[in-house]
């Protein structure tokens, strides 16, 4: 297996980057050799897909990486039953082009279609339908992993159930996934019925969420600059698959952000102006039909949009707080942000449901989640996020590893008490920057 030194691999947030010994196997039976060859020098390697993890969970700096995007084949597609088995490097983008014309949609999708199936499972991703469908792990029927100590292992909720549950949300550490079998969601149209509504404050957000229980997809954008009376104003969006309108999948194309924007582009003034325009925009009260591509994946229209944050990159922060304290904790989080003077361009608020994931280290839990991104301004940004961490910890919540690049080990371990179990089931050949930081470096590992 040919490997090469690649010095350009970075996280989606672009705060972390580094050198990796890289292999790109084109066949499932080449994965073992790719893993061993890339781990030869530093002793560890890690599967890497399309690189959409914001934080450092998909990096293994100065070690190996096995890029899975060459493993993008379908293995079997039951067009009557909606069961798809496919190699882990298949993207949701490519998957939908095949399944939508046949009347099937992914059961759960994150906000970009440029993620691999393997990445979706390793992070147990959630979407706008969490309150009715849970996270993607609930829809995984079976999967296969290659482990350095056991070879190829197939697992499902009954067979090798410990390994199955550790792999869902297991951040790629339990083995290199080879294929995944998922149950798709039936659709009769590629169009969505959509309703957007403005809300004036957090109370209205919670009321709208409760009122939208029969809408399968809900999400809200929230303004993080307006404090005081307007604290927590935003736009609530809900949708469902339409009954008519054809099964035309999305098209490719669209512009690419060619270079880094100046680091000052997204600041308090520009984001504030954007927020005022967004809130006042007629689209904020839109009711009607939209294609699924525009409804689920608005950011995919600008390829490499992460360059908007300039050369220093940006941090994502996403936490969830349980229902008991959700209102006060969410209010406190927004209050901390508006007072900080930092601006978050994309601020997303959603109520999760209580459907449990089979995943051992799954992020979603019943409650309210807030996702933010902050341009990297060094210490100021880190200090703000540390304050947000404290609010979440005090409320008994936790942070999302896929979006993290700096959480201290203690805070992570508090939010994920099962982390030792994952460490016990970790393939000894696999490691990530994230795991080194939260589970290994403080001497608690093993």
């Amino acid at each position, binding site marked *: 297996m040919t490997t090469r030194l*690649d010095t350009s691999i970075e996280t989606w947030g672009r705060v972390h980057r580094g050198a990796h010994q890289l292999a790109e196997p084109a066949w499932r*039976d080449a994965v073992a050799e790719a893993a061993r060859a890339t781990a030869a020098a530093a002793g560890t390697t890690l599967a890497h897909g399309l690189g959409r993890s914001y934080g450092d969970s998909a990096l293994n700096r100065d070690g190996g990486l096995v890029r899975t995007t060459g493993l993008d*084949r379908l293995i079997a*597609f039951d067009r009557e039953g909606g069961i798809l088995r496919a190699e882990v490097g298949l993207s949701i983008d490519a998957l939908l082009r*095949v399944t939508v014309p046949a009347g099937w949609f992914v059961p759960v999708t994150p906000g970009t279609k440029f993620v691999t199936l393997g990445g979706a499972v390793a992070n147990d991703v959630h979407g706008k339908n969490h309150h009715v469908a849970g996270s993607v792990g609930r829809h995984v029927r079976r999967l296969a992993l290659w482990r350095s100590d056991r070879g190829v292992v197939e697992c499902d909720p009954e067979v090798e159930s410990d390994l199955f549950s550790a792999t869902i949300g297991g951040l790629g550490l339990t083995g290199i996934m080879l294929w995944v079998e998922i149950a798709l969601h039936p659709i009769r149209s590629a169009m969505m019925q959509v309703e957007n509504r403005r809300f004036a404050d957090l109370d209205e957000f919670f009321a709208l969420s409760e009122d939208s229980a029969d809408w399968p997809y809900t999400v809200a954008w929230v303004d993080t600059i307006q404090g005081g009376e307007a604290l927590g104003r935003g736009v609530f969006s809900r949708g469902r698959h339409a009954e008519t309108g054809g099964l035309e999948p999305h098209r490719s194309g669209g512009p690419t952000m060619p270079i880094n924007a100046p680091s000052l582009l997204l600041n308090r003034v520009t984001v504030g102006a954007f927020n005022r325009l967004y809130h006042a925009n007629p689209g904020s009260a839109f009711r009607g039909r939209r294609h699924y591509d525009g409804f689920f994946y608005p950011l995919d229209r600008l390829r490499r949009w992460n360059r908007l944050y300039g050369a220093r990159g940006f941090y994502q922060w996403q936490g969830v707080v349980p229902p008991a304290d959700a209102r006060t904790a969410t209010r406190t989080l927004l209050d901390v942000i508006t007072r900080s003077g930092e601006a978050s361009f994309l601020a997303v608020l959603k109520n999760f449901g209580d459907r449990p994931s089979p995943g051992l280290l799954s992020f979603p839990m019943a409650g309210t989640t807030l996702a933010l991104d902050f341009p990297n301004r060094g210490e100021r940004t880190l200090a703000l996020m540390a304050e947000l961490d404290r609010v979440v910890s005090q409320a008994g919540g936790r942070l999302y590893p896929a979006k993290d690049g700096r959480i201290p080990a203690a805070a992570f371990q508090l939010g994920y008490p099962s982390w030792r179990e994952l460490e016990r089931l970790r393939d000894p050949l696999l490691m990530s920057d994230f795991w080194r930081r939260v589970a290994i470096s403080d001497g608690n590992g093993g």
Partner: protein
Amino acid sequence: MAEATRILILGATSAIAERWARLRAARGDRLLLAARDPAKLAIVADDLRARGASEVLTAESDLGDADGAAERFSAFADRLGGVDIVLLAYGVLGDQADMQANTDHLRAMLDTNFTSAVIWSELAAGHLEQAGSGTLAVIASVAGDRGRRTNYAYGATKAGLSVYLEGLAHRFAGTPVSVLCVKPGFVDTPMTAHVAKGGPLWATPDMVAADIDRAIARRRTVIYTPWFWRLIMLIIRHLPRPIFNRLNI
């Protein structure tokens, strides 16, 4: 509904061929995949079936060795019940320095990339001529446009292949049979796994496959893919020798 197109792919486990086959599978076509490795063939065939191909047949065959090619080609065509499109996509890059030092390796590469490829092309052309219509598409390379010190052995096979295809295209000019010579530039495939990628000149196999698909539909004779390689090779072909000799390409 129209009859499914009957497609024969020689070298069906190559990255570009596989990506093109996916486009055809989505249209419900019938495919026969020929290649050397039966395990890889089975994996590709499963994928194409899942994508909607109406039938996918496989044939384990060492295409680089042209012994008995006429009988083998007839068998392929019989299994499909006739062929509408033939794509020839196999080839090896070889290591230029190694082939300079070891002429057995040089000869093996010549046999694979040139000798066997023109024999299969001739057989395919004969079949299409008999049938009265159809397309032969063959993957050559921009490397065949000018001999360069870093890969003239490989380049020479692709140059010879291109001239052979040019002759076939001339023979069938004005008939319903078309012959297409595909000249890809740098493509991110396992063949180039040792090279750092990501510059603007690198294309994905999906992009190349889409270009091939369009060229077949438009009955083109020669395409460069991506398109800008036509300009690059125009310049390289016309560089005066004193300048060309100073380039380490």
